[in-house]
């Protein structure tokens, strides 16, 4: 049994190259701290995030997955985040329907100027996922060492 007080969640963050990844860089430049549990994967646009990637992360032991993109209307490719928004609405709703804790998934729009928002979002997300404890319902036990 894992000690809940020492539980460090594993968070995978998909960030679009143009806004949110730049926002994460800005958080870094301003030395705005958030837990090391967050690992960022760069994608060109939030619409590149395939639901399969999210499920894969959960399968391989991630405790939370967050997708960050440009604010609606600001997409570098004009419409990518609108598609992402629809896809994620359905996927998250389905995970909820299957009884997976809601707070393990999130979509957040973070612009390149919102370093502070990026750090605050990550702090909040890590806190929520930590409170949920380890991801048991979606874990693939084969792949755990």
């Amino acid at each position, binding site marked *: 049994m894992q000690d809940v007080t020492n539980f460090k969640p594993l968070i995978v963050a998909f960030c679009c190259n143009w806004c949110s990844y730049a926002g994460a*860089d800005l958080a870094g*430049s301003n030395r705005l701290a958030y837990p090391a549990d967050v690992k960022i994967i760069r994608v060109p646009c939030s*619409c590149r995030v*395939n639901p399969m*990637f999210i499920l894969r992360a959960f399968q*391989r032991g991630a405790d939370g997955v967050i997708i960050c993109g440009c604010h609606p209307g600001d997409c570098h490719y*004009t419409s990518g985040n609108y598609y992402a928004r629809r896809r994620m609405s359905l996927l998250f709703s389905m995970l909820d329907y299957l009884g997976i804790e809601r707070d393990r998934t999130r979509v957040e729009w973070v612009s390149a100027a919102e370093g502070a928002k990026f750090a605050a979002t990550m702090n909040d997300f890590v806190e929520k996922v930590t409170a949920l404890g380890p991801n048991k319902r979606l874990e693939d036990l084969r792949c755990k060492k």
Partner: protein
Amino acid sequence: MQRIGVFVCHCGTNIAGTVDVVAVAEALKNEPGVVHSAEYQYMCSQAGQDLIKAAIKEHNLSGIVVCSCSPRMHEATFRKTAAAAGLNPYMVEIANIREQCSWIHKDMASGTEKAIILGKAAIAKVNLNTPLTPGESPVTKRALVIGGGIAGIQTALDIADAGFPVDIVETKPTIGGKMAQLDKTFPTLDCAACILTPKMVDVAQNEKIRIFSYSEVVDVRGFVGNFDVTIKKRARYVKEDICTGCGLCTEKCPQKKVPNEFNLGMDNRRAIYIPFAQAVPKVATIDADYCTMLKTGKCGVCAKVCTAGAIDYEAKDEFIEEKYGAVVVATGFNPISMDKFDEFAYNQSKDVITSLEFERLTNAAGPTAGKLLRPSDGEHPHTIVFVQCVGSRCEACAEKGKEYCSKICCMYTAKHAMLTRDKYPDTDVYVFYIDVRTPGKAFDEFYRRAVEEYGVHYIKGMVGKVSPEGNKLKVQASDLIAGKQLHIDADLVVLAAAIEPDKSARGLATMLTASMDTNDFFTEAHPKLRPVESPTAGVFLSGTCQGPKDIPETVSQAGAAASKVIGLLCKDKLTGNPCVAQSDEMMCNGCSSCERVCPYGAITYSDKEFRMPDRTTKIRRVASVNPAVCQGCGACTVACPSGAMDLNGFKNNQIMAEVDAICKM
């Protein structure tokens, strides 16, 4: 198996302060594919780059991972370094251990642990990288401008000025567009013809510009730098190169009962006509719908009176094929139909007119030679009611009006009201408005002048009903500030009709694979930062086809579009971004999902024959991506149900490998 080199940067103490860089280099040494691992003070310095170059050669590396600052900072630098050492630049991956690690973590242990994981993810990705080569395509140094209004004219003149040939395609017999129909222009009140017609002449005289009038674009193929366009030149039954524009035929033609569209049907023209005196090209056109000769074979008056012998009843539509490097859409607008607005009695009374009709009524070249006379009885109107926002900001009923603000109506109504009071001070002028919007240089002052100096009655509130009674128009309206209903006996009611994109735009957008919004305005590539480009590469937007605009704005956008076109045509070759989508034809279902989400129209479908394992051939519909047009967003890769569509540089298996590497703790 790749031969990967890992290079960990200290960035002075920026990274080394919170990340044990030596431990990172050591830990990554044993990752799959890694044959070399090193750390150095400043990887981006010349010495650091030399170190990478030497290692690439010494260890015969097939890929490198640089653990350093954000790829947004130095990815380009390290790609160049790799290329200089003979390695494909797309075999470089960056692990961001500064902005996303050392700078935000204070604890050395967790910082180091995270840096190692980020390094592992980058290594996992490089293991699946493949060398990518950007495609190159030539640029045809000629531009096409669709639409010959002020937007198209200005764009064409600016492009031609830079030395590139330009063709203007205009559906009407003359260029000039809506501006040619206007009387005066706000806020300076100079006459539209005085400032427009010299430009039209410039176009006609410019050797770089060809005008295809009475023509339309019927087919567009190809992509940025290489458009193949078919232009249909409709038969005008007059030889353009021979006609001198003397106008004798237009006086002698016996068919006099043709509604004159230039004056919005308020008077008649002949079956052979020149739209207006300053038309360019100044060539007569026979209206085949009305010409007795063309319909019955009996008449031929125009041919008899034409001393130049320019009339050709046998003329046929011609199709011209031409190559272009860039296309500018300048299709403009039209006022919406007033048919559905029964409350304003537009169809019941001749004295209820639109603002564009009012322009013609006050224009010296118009049906009344510039005298403001009622269309019904030719009397001078003494009470005129202007109604603003007719069909604009009308969200509730999409069939009737438009949800957006048409932007120009406040100003031209102020202009009409002011000019009326100026010429005919005995006239009472009322303007009913919802809001008066005058955001422009010297615009609000203009409107205030109409109120303060010219005594135009601006009343906040809308007209609810207009009913013709005798020779008066009973106007029932609300005065919201006084809080009462007004009843005015008007002689003339002028409706500021909303404007909508020209109907031809929808078909054109399909041909160009340029996207449109729900109102059929063309969408810009970025609403703030790329306002004159369409998301489709090589297609540019000029004027009201992109959204309601007044003349100054249209002209500045036209110039901006021209400068973008010039920037494109200056290049001999276009180098693409190799990180574009690619379709695996063997797996493609042909379902069109990807095509529907592509904002650039980069995906096309074709039927292809496939040889099957059982030696039969099967014809299947499959997608292919034009790498010159694709911008690499990846929307298609997720829309594709079979996974046939993948994105170079961000392939499904690469991202999965990153996920796995991060989660394998």
